[in-house]
């Protein structure tokens, strides 16, 4: 009997201790520290080896480029460069650097650093390299004086300027001193930074994230309201990010949460959910290079078999805008009068009847872990079965899908995914997705039609934006009429922030993760 009492007492004291220890986490953040919960891990800090949206915060806050995309609709703003000139033949771009910009170690940002940066990108062959590898030869970029950079493209390009922000300028002296075995300082730079950006790195752990403090001498200057410290942490689970926001552990998280979570956050009095139309289209690739998908009738049948309304209004709770063409609604070059497809099984059957030959089981690809792609695949499968087509869904991780996408044999018949903004130019979408010279690279639909390609190639070198817009509009309409893919929606960004956070500036490039404009009340 005694032992029962002892046992009970022991358990009670253990429980009491446990409860008192758990408590509620106190949030003793300094008033001007901003913590962001990110869905992907920051596994490297090297700005030249990664170029994805998930890890943009390190590049955006610790590095600068000659130009920068700001706001929505995106404006190309001079940044490290104060002015630029384009030669008449469109092949030479001369940038004048502003004076007074410095790296975090105090040394000035000079033209030679810009040259080193572009050479480094070309040499490492990673990250944003495909934007430049076709038009810039290694060794062709010059620095005639400390504040002038000359890019000598091998052909006129109208998109070059739009892609200039992707050249993040690194401290060439510092990196050269850290070079080991010709790695361009890569081993060191993956864990450190050599930038001039608004914030400088104070702490980094690839398993946790990074911390940075305000760089007071940044050339853009600071008002009287700013953040002293920023921290970007990896929190993989959606629910954890949401709960952390509600608890006050974080002050912000990514703006592409499922709508159910957004509703939850909107309902909380401590939260402020900002809403913007982004440029990120959701679509399904159709493998145009494989029989019988090369038959436009089959592709049209597929396009009429997807329940767009159910997907947008029910599964996504009406939180996105229908975007029936391969260019986002809110950028120039979007054909405003294009009708696109609707969920119409009768029409689908009509076109299906015109398809010659047997149709094998259709493989619909989805990205494992991205519920929306799986739901879209299931919805499509449902529609297809109603018109008598058999299909199977294959959900694989991005590491598998991204490899298969580049191989004509291994590529799925269809694949659901998004196309984000890397630079605000229609070439980023229709210009890459359906260009013949991008087949197997950024064109994973194996779509190559001479009439469309002519328009796209012209637009790449035409300097007049109005003319370019006309080309892209026409090309987008043609691809849509040709049912080159199934185009569903353009994403809306719902940025959830603690209501103390002020000054957030959203741009589809950067997704509001640039912290220099932000302060906390």
């Amino acid at each position, binding site marked *: 009997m005694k032992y029962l009492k002892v046992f009970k007492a022991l358990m009670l004291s253990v429980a009491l201790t446990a409860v008192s220890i758990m408590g509620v986490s106190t949030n003793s953040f300094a008033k001007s520290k901003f913590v962001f919960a990110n869905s992907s891990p920051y596994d490297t800090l090297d700005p030249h080896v990664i170029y994805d949206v998930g890890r943009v915060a390190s590049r955006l806050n610790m590095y600068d480029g000659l130009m920068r995309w700001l706001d929505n609709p995106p404006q190309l703003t001079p940044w490290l460069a104060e002015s630029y000139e384009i030669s008449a033949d469109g092949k030479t771009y001369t940038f004048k650097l502003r004076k007074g910009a410095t790296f975090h170690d105090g040394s000035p940002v000079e033209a030679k650093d810009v040259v080193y940066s572009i050479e480094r990108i070309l040499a490492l062959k990673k990250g944003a390299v495909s934007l430049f590898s076709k038009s810039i030869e290694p060794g062709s970029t010059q620095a005639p004086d400390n504040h002038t950079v000359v890019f000598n493209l091998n052909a006129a390009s109208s998109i070059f300027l739009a892609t200039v922000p992707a050249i993040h300028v690194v401290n060439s002296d510092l990196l050269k001193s850290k070079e080991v075995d010709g790695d361009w300082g890569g081993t060191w730079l993956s864990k450190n930074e050599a930038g001039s950006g608004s914030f400088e790195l104070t702490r980094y752990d690839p398993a946790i994230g990074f911390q940075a403090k305000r760089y007071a001498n940044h050339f853009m200057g600071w008002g009287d309201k700013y953040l002293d410290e920023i921290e970007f942490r990896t929190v993989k*689970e*959606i*629910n954890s990010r949401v709960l952390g926001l509600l608890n006050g552990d974080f002050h912000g998280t990514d703006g592409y949460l*499922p709508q*159910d*979570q957004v509703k*939850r956050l909107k309902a909380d009095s401590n939260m402020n959910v900002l809403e913007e139309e982004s440029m990120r289209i959701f679509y399904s690739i159709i493998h145009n290079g494989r029989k019988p998908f090369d038959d436009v009738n089959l592709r049209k049948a597929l396009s009429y078999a997807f*329940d767009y309304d*159910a*997907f947008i*209004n*029910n*599964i996504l709770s009406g939180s996105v805008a229908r975007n029936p063409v391969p260019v986002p609604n809110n950028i120039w070059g979007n054909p405003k009068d294009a009708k696109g497809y609707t969920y119409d099984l009768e029409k689908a059957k009509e076109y299906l009847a015109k398809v010659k030959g047997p149709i094998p089981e259709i493989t619909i690809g*989805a990205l*494992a*872990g991205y*519920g929306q792609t*799986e*739901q879209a*695949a*299931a*919805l499509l*499968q*449902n529609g297809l*079965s109603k018109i008598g087509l058999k299909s*199977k*869904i*294959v*959900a*694989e991780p991005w590491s598998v899908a991204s490899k298969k996408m580049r191989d004509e044999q291994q590529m799925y018949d269809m694949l659901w995914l998004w196309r984000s903004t890397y630079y605000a130019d229609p070439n980023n979408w229709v210009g890459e997705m359906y260009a013949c010279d991008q087949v197997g690279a950024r064109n994973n639909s194996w779509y190559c039609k001479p009439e469309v390609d002519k328009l796209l190639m012209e637009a790449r070198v035409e300097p007049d934006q109005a003319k370019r817009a006309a080309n892209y509009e026409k090309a987008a309409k043609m691809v849509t009429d040709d049912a080159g893919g199934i185009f569903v929606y353009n994403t809306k960004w719902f940025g959830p922030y603690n209501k103390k956070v002020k000054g957030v500036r959203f741009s589809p490039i950067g997704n509001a993760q640039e912290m220099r404009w932000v302060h906390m009340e």
Partner: protein
Amino acid sequence: MFESAKFIISKLAKDRTSLVGACLIAGLILIALFAPLLAPYPQDVTEFHPPERLLGPSMSHFFGTDRMGSDIFSRMLFGARITIAIAVIAIGVSVLIGVPIGLIAGYNKNWISDGLMRVSDIFLAVPQIILAIAIAQTLGPSIENVILALSATYWPFWARLVYAETRSALTETYVEASIALGASPFRVMVFHVLPNISSSIIVRTTIGMGGTILTAAALGFLGLGPPAPSPEWGRTIAESREFLPEAWWYATAPGVAIFLVVMGFNLFGDGLRDILDPRTRRSHDG
């Protein structure tokens, strides 16, 4: 043989917990067989109604609806088919591989038997789940590959068990006698040793079913099982996570299903073991 079977059944019937287990297993089999008749919305395995997504439990949807608007209760019933198929075939294959290997290894006392046991040891050296995940991921997510992965990781258990039992059976006089009388190794193994160790195998198989089902569900949870829109229980739990805590029914239903099924096999297996294998009986006089 039938005498002992009748005896076993009558003893089982008297043990309450085994009876509960047997009922649960019978329930699983019946549900799997008659799912199309029992399910209120059998078409919901492949059809979706997005306007009705994530509704709570009600008279029309006993366990609510999932992210695509399908009736969870109906899908769970069909999920039973998948569970049974995976468990039975995987265990069947492991037994078919493991038992002969164990018999051969146990009967012989040469490098062959040592080698076979070493190979089993290699497979047993890694946590089963890791090996299963690696194999399933390599082959791609599908029901066949889950079965393959499970068979490949479970056969060593049977090989080991049969090996030990065979070795001790070989010391039995009747076995020695039959060998002395010139019976071929095959005869000895199949007609003398096997019948005697069959009770161990049966007990182990029943108890092993539970573990197999759990591992299969874990594979489904990690996305390595049958792909969408399969109503596999583990996969459904994974799907439900992003809708918690509001849609609590979404995660509860498949979990309870797994629990009941595994419980059934565990209880029944325990009962069987107490009857067939008194040596290893656990003192649980109730």
